[in-house]
């Protein structure tokens, strides 16, 4: 059982502590009697923690389970097993009704600004709904609070009677953020908050999130596939592959001294403008093949089918997430080795 690495050294009580979280989705057969013939192992035992006001980045590619993690934390899916301690309370076994008071403290920002806002509700309704459900503000003051929130996210407060279709993508994402902010949550789960936006708008929204984080001391679980943005936003990062965390550590370590082969391959694949512009083309680590199916993940280490270091032990024994160096850094690999050259130029 891996100890949540990221807070152990700091001594403060973590806001969120996830231990061995598992989420499997059953696969039904198509025969006469529908039996469960397999499980999609979307998340298969992950552990991490987030301190109040801190950000943890969760990166990985399609199918790694990062989005599922965000949804399980929100109890949009029920976890199959494991613990999710929020402010000391384990949310995993709670029923939806018991969950309600906790929902004030954890909010989710969605990826797609076009489909995450109800087109039939005015912006004011969208933002006011959480306030009304949780009765945090007397009815008379709801509109004022809505206007305050709109101003906070950089929108015109008089626009609360408009419909989402009247706003651009970047503005809609701001509305989503205002909605999430309405209850002043302690933790915001941002699931790819800027991927659907234009580049110049992405920076606006990222800056907004950082400002809000500083002002309200909100912790973030920042789920994204864009490694550059995650690096900018999160001092700590966890890398996921096929339902497992393969490496977790602070920014400097992950980006400059990645130990896990997958982290190295991932970093090596990202095109870097400044690098290429200067003329250095790094040697790219080329991963062969496709990501295996989460229904039938490879035995032992899940990454071994694409890993250039794979040996027999990798198939026989799943490498545990072990501490390397400082308590904050953990890697799950039998042959973990730092590589400081990934992001360096090959000149």
């Amino acid at each position, binding site marked *: 059982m891996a100890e949540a690495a990221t807070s152990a050294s700091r001594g403060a009580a973590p806001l969120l502590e996830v231990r061995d979280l598992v989420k499997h989705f059953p696969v039904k057969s198509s025969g006469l009697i529908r039996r469960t013939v397999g499980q999609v192992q979307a998340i298969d035992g992950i552990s991490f923690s987030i301190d109040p006001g801190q950000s943890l980045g969760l990166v990985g590619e399609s199918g790694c389970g990062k989005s599922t993690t965000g949804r399980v934390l929100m109890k949009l899916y029920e976890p199959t097993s494991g613990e999710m301690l929020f402010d000391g309370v384990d949310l995993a076994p709670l029923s939806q009704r018991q969950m309600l008071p906790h929902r004030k403290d954890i909010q989710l920002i969605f990826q797609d600004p076009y489909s995450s806002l109800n087109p039939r509700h005015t912006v004011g309704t969208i933002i006011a709904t959480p306030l009304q459900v949780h009765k945090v503000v007397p009815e008379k003051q709801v509109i004022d609070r809505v206007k305050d929130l709109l101003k906070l996210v950089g929108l015109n407060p008089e626009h609360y009677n408009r419909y989402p279709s009247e706003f651009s993508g970047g503005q809609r994402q701001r509305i989503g953020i205002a909605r999430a902010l309405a209850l002043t949550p302690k933790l915001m789960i941002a699931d790819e908050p800027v991927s659907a936006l234009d580049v110049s708008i992405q920076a606006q929204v990222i800056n907004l999130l950082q400002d809000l984080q500083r002002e309200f001391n909100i912790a973030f679980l920042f789920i994204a596939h864009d490694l550059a943005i995650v690096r900018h936003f999160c001092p700590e990062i966890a890398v996921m592959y096929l339902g497992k965390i393969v490496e977790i550590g602070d920014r400097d370590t992950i980006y400059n001294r990645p130990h896990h082969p997958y982290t190295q391959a991932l*970093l090596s694949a990202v*095109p870097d403008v400044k690098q290429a512009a200067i003329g250095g083309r790094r040697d790219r680590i080329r991963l062969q*093949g496709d990501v295996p199916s989460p229904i039938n993940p490879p035995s032992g280490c899940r990454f071994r089918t694409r890993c250039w270091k794979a040996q027999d032990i990798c198939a026989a024994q799943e490498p545990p997430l072990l501490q390397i160096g400082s308590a904050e850094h953990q890697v799950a690999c039998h042959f973990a080795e730092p590589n400081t050259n990934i992001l360096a130029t090959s000149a």
Partner: protein
Amino acid sequence: MPSTDAEPYLRVEDLSVSFPTRDGVVRAVTGMTYQVALGKTLGIVGESGSGKSVSSLAVMGLHDMKRTQMEGSIRIEDTEVVGLPEDRMRRLRGNAAAMIFQDPLTALHPFYTIGAQIVEAYRVHNPDVSKREAKAKAVDMLERVGIPQPNRRVDDFPHQFSGGMRQRAMIAMSLVNNPKLLFADEPTTALDVTVQAQILDLLQELQRDFGSAIVIITHDLGVIAEMADEVLVMYAGRCVEYGATREVLTHPEMPYTWGLLNSVPELTGDPEEALLPIPGSPPSLLNPPNGCAFHPRCGYSHLVPADLCTRELPLLEPSPRGESHLKRCHLLDPENDMRTHEPVVDDDVLEQPDLVVADRVQAPDQQTLSTAGDSNG
């Protein structure tokens, strides 16, 4: 014009594409000029509404000419495409010029096997080829693009492939007739980053083997940096900067390019360094701002005397860096100005009316063209 060693294969001159809509005329592309030579790659970079996709669809003749006005000249080898009768244009499409699209899941027909679709692409330009030969060619192409077990997978449907494999299959389909010109419209946006790397590598390898000219359209500066020999930056339907990639990315001569570079976080350097976003949003193509379309969001227009930026459209002309690095900016030495001055922006640029309209006009009557990903404002 940026110098090219070889004769250009594609020559676009003063291209303008506009769509009359109920709300007015949308000028999606205005006065665009560029060239690509065989074996070279041009990157066209821009955000939503920049017109980058529209311009490429225009070269391929994929706009509904009943609802589109096209002016200017497009020459593929020696053939003038603007005004070319449809049956002659059809002979070029998929043959001399091919295109791969952003989302291979929706760009491939879900009801036909990959093999059938490649065979179709082959036989439309080689009608005398037998079905068996065409299928063998399809298998061969799948192998070329790195799909394992091609003779089995040729009979699979698109939904049975993973995202990266699908994009490879689409590349195979577009290259089956050895086109000398390939357009790649956001070819990796829908893919994971490791798969993106594989696809970009593949494209470069195929370019070496086939010697084609590639035009890659994207919003991702990283992709441009890796793939493109030259880059053309588009804003509000016009080219605002054009030159060798390394040049433009290290010595930008237009505040928009500068702004793009500053708003993208890096993998190296100070991670806490603030991102400097470009304030405001891309402009409406129905009612673009007067003068330079970028001026409402430009932090350096105050350095230009007499409010010239609000009145007069700057010409695309050589920058102080050289004849082959063009800029569309009234500043005489933009790079210097940008590096030595702080940007200054009006407060009410954040408060732009009619952004509503910008979203709606990105997609005029849908039958004209399908600009997936181009209405993202």
